[in-house]
């Protein structure tokens, strides 16, 4: 290394030093400690006691664990695909040249900005069994609405509904991608007499496929970790018959209510592995379908 190179190295390290400290304190240490705790019995107050793989084995027989995992998959299995489709349709609509387009865009985006606690309050009120707006609207259509948040069958659909309402972020990401599709592709297709559906299916979808993939991966990561709305809806309790006890909520309960820090850490690592596996599966199964214009 020349003197200049060495000087640059030190200056570079000096600039990134906030990141280095953060990396050591907020990533390296917690990740290592989390692995260790996951093999321990640990209640924070006394020293961790090594128990080997007990926490992981406990999970296999913990019915609540499996229920929370099932609830989370149920939520993700509906919220994720529905969210991807609805936001794509919304983005296509908002990409048309219509009058008042900025206003429409702002309106579609607005719900995703509302702080999740406030949004949960609003939805609790809308889904209220007796006076909620939704059931009154259904009544008007001569449908008897369910007790959304009190009936174990309907708690998860309630949360799915709310998550679909707040899909504005995904819409904006799609919209940005749609605006990048070259006009010339559509124009030449129109000369060949292609219909709107053909253009959508054979130009729009392939051109924005990398962004669909991106939203899919982000969606997997996000929907498996869903916490705040489920916690607020049922004041941390998981709802009737634990029907809305999601993985992250159960993990939180283990850590901060039952003080089973070791078990909580083991659950966190299992969640990480599930996310990795699903991301990998999604990547593999969509690899051939994604079209990168740059290549």
């Amino acid at each position, binding site marked *: 290394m020349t003197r200049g190179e060495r000087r640059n190295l030190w200056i570079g*390290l000096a600039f990134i030093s906030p990141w280095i400290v953060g990396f050591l304190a907020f990533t390296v240490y917690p*990740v290592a*400690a989390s692995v260790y705790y996951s093999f321990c019995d640990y209640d924070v107050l006394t020293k961790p006691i090594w128990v080997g793989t007990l926490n992981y084995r406990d999970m296999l027989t913990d019915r609540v664990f499996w229920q929370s995992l099932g609830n989370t998959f149920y939520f993700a299995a509906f919220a994720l695909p529905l969210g991807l489709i609805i936001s794509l349709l919304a983005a296509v609509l908002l990409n048309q040249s219509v009058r008042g387009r900025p206003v429409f865009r702002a309106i579609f985006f607005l719900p995703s900005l509302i702080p999740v606690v406030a949004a949960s309050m609003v939805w*609790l009120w809308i889904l209220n069994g007796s006076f909620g707006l939704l059931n009154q609207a259904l009544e008007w259509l001569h449908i008897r609405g369910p007790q959304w948040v009190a009936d174990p069958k309907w708690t998860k659909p309630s949360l799915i509904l709310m998550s679909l309402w707040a899909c504005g972020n995904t819409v904006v990401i799609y919209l940005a991608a749609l605006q990048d599709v070259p006009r010339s592709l559509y124009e030449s297709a129109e000369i060949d007499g292609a219909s709107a559906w053909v253009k959508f299916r054979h130009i729009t979808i392939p051109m924005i496929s990398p962004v669909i993939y991106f939203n899919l991966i982000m969606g997997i990561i996000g929907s498996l970790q869903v916490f705040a709305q489920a916690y607020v809806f049922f004041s941390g309790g998981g709802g009737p018959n634990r029907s809305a006890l999601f993985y992250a909520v159960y993990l939180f309960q283990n850590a901060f209510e039952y003080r089973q820090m070791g078990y909580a850490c083991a659950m966190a690592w299992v969640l990480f592995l599930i996310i990795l596996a699903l991301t990998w599966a999604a990547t593999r199964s969509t690899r051939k379908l994604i079209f990168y214009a740059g290549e």
Partner: protein
Amino acid sequence: MRRLHRLLIYALLILGSITFLIPLLWMISTGLKPIEQTMSLPPTWIPYREVVGADGVVVKKIAPRWENFAKAIRAMKQFPRYLKNTLFLCLLTVIGTVLSSALAAYGFSRIEWRGRNRVFLLALATMMVPFPVTMVPMYCLFRWLGWIGTMKPLWVGSFFAGAFNVFLLRQFFMSLPKDLSEAARIDGCGEFRIFWQIILPLCRPALMVVGLFQFMFTWNDFMGPLIYLTKQEDFTLALGLQFFQSQQGGTEWHYLMAASTLVALPIILLFFFTQKTFVEGISMTGIKG
């Protein structure tokens, strides 16, 4: 055919707008009603007062109960404290995030040093670790430091450059021409001065995005305050609102909706004033993320 097509687009856009707006309008409407009108069947959209007219006929006059807001604030007891705490945390985390991420991003983009790209890859890899994995050890660390029940765990971390923001700013820094720094270096300008006086002013839009998103994140954050705050006087608005709801058990919906409106309104206003930065920011995070 073309006209029909356009008509359909407008119809769908209007339908979608109504669906997305109704919950918000319902929140505001409920927040302005007296309690008996919150439970009327069919629903009341516009709060009214019944007034006996000159001819003895009872007429409904539009009458929003603005006093609900004041009453909701009083019912929440510590509302001014919640607001103060939230603003305090927003201010500190925005300053911390913008400063530290800009510094780190500069080191990762505008200075050539050996191993830079490998270290940057490491930084990117940290984004994969989900929050629950580090949640417990972080809690234990802050407990060891005696910080549980204080606001420190909620802002100290922001001064240590999160990978995501570093990544965003780095993209932006790299798009600026190299000559800019070279010319300044030849003039004998120190690296920190180049950063502070030349590069940073040019990056204002990107810094705005990072700051804005951090503000929103801190304002909306629920899990962090839930884990670390133990005293009611330290609560943030998000935690305070949830606490209020779980305490009163959900009967006084008009106050709850007034309070929710108060928590949501600043974010909505912020959005309308910074719409352009916002949308640019999201597409920036989306495409290049």
